[in-house]
């Protein structure tokens, strides 16, 4: 079973909360869950609030356009979703007062014919138990778990856990509202048309957001310094590390601005401490000067950029993949950098660990590109997170090399051993000025070329050591897709959809965007007739980067709706490409 539930109401009604409680309840019973919140940038918006939860008995990594169950706590707010529901959808709504059925502008009047109406006196139940109407979201949840056939006890257990801090009475009241709505449905809505049952397997999964997974990765990698400046949607990484870093003797500092944050990271990395900062587009723009410094001075640096709609302040609470260009090209001069882009929540964890490993090993900035969708969605995790074996990947000089020590020695693989302060005898000053092997600032052309060569040689070394590009799907396919970041979930699901419709696809998947896995890209391009590149940006930033291969094969699919791409969106494009190929 695969069910998508849309929660809809106004901000402040606890829409996100019941989305979360359902997510946790479902995950605890072994259902695969994907949960995405969307809300306005305002703290308590007058506007609408909605959440989407997809439940499935197989792993899920994107959304479809379908709404199987619409849960409405505010009839006006749900009008926007009325046209999106299907004929066999179930609508849970507040049916008290009853006359709403006659209201012409009610969202009920706008629903397509044939939908199953599951009205429950949500406000009344809340008032009966608590004397206030605030619990109507819980009543809606009670009706929903009846529809889904999720055990009432599992949900009650989650409520007890979720609101433990609020005290016993609060939990007891919420459970009573939940049960009341559940039992009401049991007597009122007996037939199977009121049910969309999902199989409960029993063994639960943990649930994590992309931001939480990044923070967990940082903790596992033994990050010891976090410097940050609050910014949506990256702040939860900061908040989680602020709570959890001190327990492993790490330190967290809230700096005066993003330039300071990344400068602190460089200063701390210089002493050998694993350190990081996380930000979003506007902050990332400010950090660029230090990316150049990190590259030139060869000091490790980990930056997480959780992308949001841009440019400028842009759309703080909408998802976009439009910071690839700044990640690739931000800064003056010829700068080295590594760019990682996880495609799901689990990879947020593994990429965070890799970011620290690579920053230290290659002594350069590592940019981890997440995005609002990845960062804010909560998803069930199916594999166990592995702890890294090494938490220090800095190549340090051997004490026997003290006499001949040169900090920026032009080595074969480009990596020069880096001593850390506190080490006897290996004194040096690193600098953002061009320098010779010893670190002394010099400007002669031969040296500038040799040192630039050396810095870029590290990227060649890195490409050999860290490349994880893979081509998935039918080897004989004539349509290829290159996808990056959170869009990849929808692409992979679309690949299966296409297969079921008889269209073969192959997908190039990589979390390392720079250094570019050129061989895999050339391999894909040469084996297919068209390459679809779906991206949540206007310019087609990855597509533009790949025009060096066979530009005429590229078909761009650029969306800047702020709403995550679905497998249906991708499928439509695949069908279009397929039509073009057939006509040719």
């Amino acid at each position, binding site marked *: 079973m695969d069910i998508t539930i849309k929660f809809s109401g106004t901000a402040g009604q606890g829409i996100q909360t019941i989305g979360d409680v359902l997510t946790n309840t479902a995950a605890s019973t072994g259902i695969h869950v994907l949960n995405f919140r969307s809300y306005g940038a305002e703290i308590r918006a007058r506007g609408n609030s909605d959440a989407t939860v997809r439940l499935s008995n197989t792993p899920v990594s994107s959304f479809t356009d379908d709404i199987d169950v619409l849960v409405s706590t505010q009839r006006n707010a749900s009008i926007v979703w009325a046209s999106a529901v299907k004929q066999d959808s179930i609508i849970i709504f507040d049916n008290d007062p009853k006359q709403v059925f006659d209201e012409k502008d009610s969202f009920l009047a706008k629903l397509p014919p044939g939908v199953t109406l599951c009205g429950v006196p949500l406000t009344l139940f809340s008032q009966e138990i608590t004397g206030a109407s605030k619990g109507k979201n819980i009543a809606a949840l009670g009706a929903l778990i009846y529809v889904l056939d999720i055990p009432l006890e599992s949900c009650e257990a989650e409520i007890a856990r979720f609101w433990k801090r609020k005290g016993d009475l609060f939990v007891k009241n919420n459970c009573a509202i939940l049960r009341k709505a559940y039992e009401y449905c049991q007597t009122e809505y007996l037939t199977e048309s009121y049910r969309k049952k999902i199989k409960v397997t029993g063994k639960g999964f943990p649930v994590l957001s992309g931001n939480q997974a990044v923070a967990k990765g940082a903790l596992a990698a033994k990050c010891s310094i976090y410097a940050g400046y609050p910014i949506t949607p990256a702040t939860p990484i900061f908040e989680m590390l602020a709570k959890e870093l001190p327990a492993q003797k790490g330190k967290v*500092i809230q700096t005066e601005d993003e330039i300071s944050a990344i400068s602190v990271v460089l200063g701390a990395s210089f002493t050998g401490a694993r350190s990081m900062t996380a930000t979003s587009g506007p902050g990332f723009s400010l950090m660029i000067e230090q990316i150049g410094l990190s590259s030139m001075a060869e000091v490790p640096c980990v930056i997480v950029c959780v992308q949001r709609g841009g440019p400028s302040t842009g759309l703080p609470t909408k998802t976009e993949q439009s910071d690839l260009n700044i990640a690739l090209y931000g800064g003056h001069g010829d700068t080295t950098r590594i760019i990682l882009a996880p495609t799901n929540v689990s990879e947020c964890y593994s990429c965070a660990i890799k970011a620290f490993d690579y920053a230290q090993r290659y002594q350069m900035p590592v940019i981890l590109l997440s995005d609002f969708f990845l960062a804010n969605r909560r998803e069930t995790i199916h594999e166990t997170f592995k702890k890294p074996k090494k938490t220090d990947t800095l190549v340090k000089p051997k004490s026997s090399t003290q006499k001949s020590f040169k900090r920026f020695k032009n080595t074969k693989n480009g990596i020069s051993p880096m001593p850390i302060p506190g080490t006897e005898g290996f004194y040096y000053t690193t*600098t953002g000025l061009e320098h010779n092997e010893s670190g002394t600032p010099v400007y002669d052309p031969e040296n500038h070329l040799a040192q630039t060569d050396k810095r870029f040689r590290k990227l060649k070394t890195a490409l050999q050591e860290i490349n994880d590009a893979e081509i998935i799907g039918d080897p004989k396919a004539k349509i290829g897709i290159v996808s990056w970041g959170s869009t990849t979930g929808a692409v992979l699901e679309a690949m299966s959809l296409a297969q079921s419709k008889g269209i073969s696809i192959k997908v190039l998947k990589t979390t390392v965007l720079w250094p570019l896995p050129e061989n895999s890209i050339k391999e894909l391009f040469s084996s297919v007739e068209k390459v679809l590149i779906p991206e949540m940006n206007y310019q087609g930033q990855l597509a533009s980067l790949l025009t060096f291969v066979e530009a005429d094969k590229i078909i761009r699919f650029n969306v800047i709706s702020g709403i995550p791409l679905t497998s249906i969106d991708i499928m439509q494009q695949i069908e279009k490409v397929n039509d073009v190929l057939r006509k040719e």
Partner: protein
Amino acid sequence: MFYEKNKDVKASFDTVVQQGALNYRSKEMPIWCPGCGDFAIAQALVEALNELAIPPKDVAIGSGIGCSGRFPVFIKCYGFHGVHGRALPLATGMKLGNEKLTVFAMGGDGDGLSIGAGHFPHAARRNININYFLFDNSIYALTKGQTSPTADTGTVSKTTPFGSLDNPLNPVLLSLSYGSTFVARAFSGYHHEMKNLMIKAIQHEGFSFLHILTPCVVFNKQKTYELYYDRCKPLPKSHKKSSFDQAMKCAQNQKTLYTGVFYQNSRAALQ
């Protein structure tokens, strides 16, 4: 040959070597212009480090851009010559990364009071246990003579050919109001006093701010050694460094530029 003929020179050279401060100098030759006050600052720092017996391996210097930015290159230490204005956050990171280090932030008046001015109050209010030496020559000297945030109103420079309109900043006054727990001023022409103030700054647990007046003999014809010899005077004997009010009052005196420790107090320091 030279030493055989000039035995007294040899003797005094031997004394200097024995004193050990030279061990704190790197092999790099300073690039400053002859007569620059920065030479004296470097010499005072190596002497201070030597007196305190802090091993070079535990000395970390973060610097910005400007004539002062090159400072760590000439000292035997672990140095990080960063970009313009970021000496303080860089040094903050160094101290957070390894609290055993004796950490310095070095930068000029342009570096610390213009482009990097936003970092100054926060380093002070955090009371991070680092030493911030502000080299004040009241001119952008590395870029060959433009007006700076501490230049007097009316200063004629290459970017203010008709005289600067802006009021100068007062670094000591700023530092006091930002909540620094150690605020002092030195003049690079008074070597021993400067060295002793450096020692006090290093010994202070918390954010130590040392304002150093250091003339630029090439580009600044207004803030000269003569002017500072004339106007720099030690703080009055009656000055109590525990009194914030007295410190504020002395800092406001523009005619007499007091040197010495204006203010010192203790507050929990960030490591």
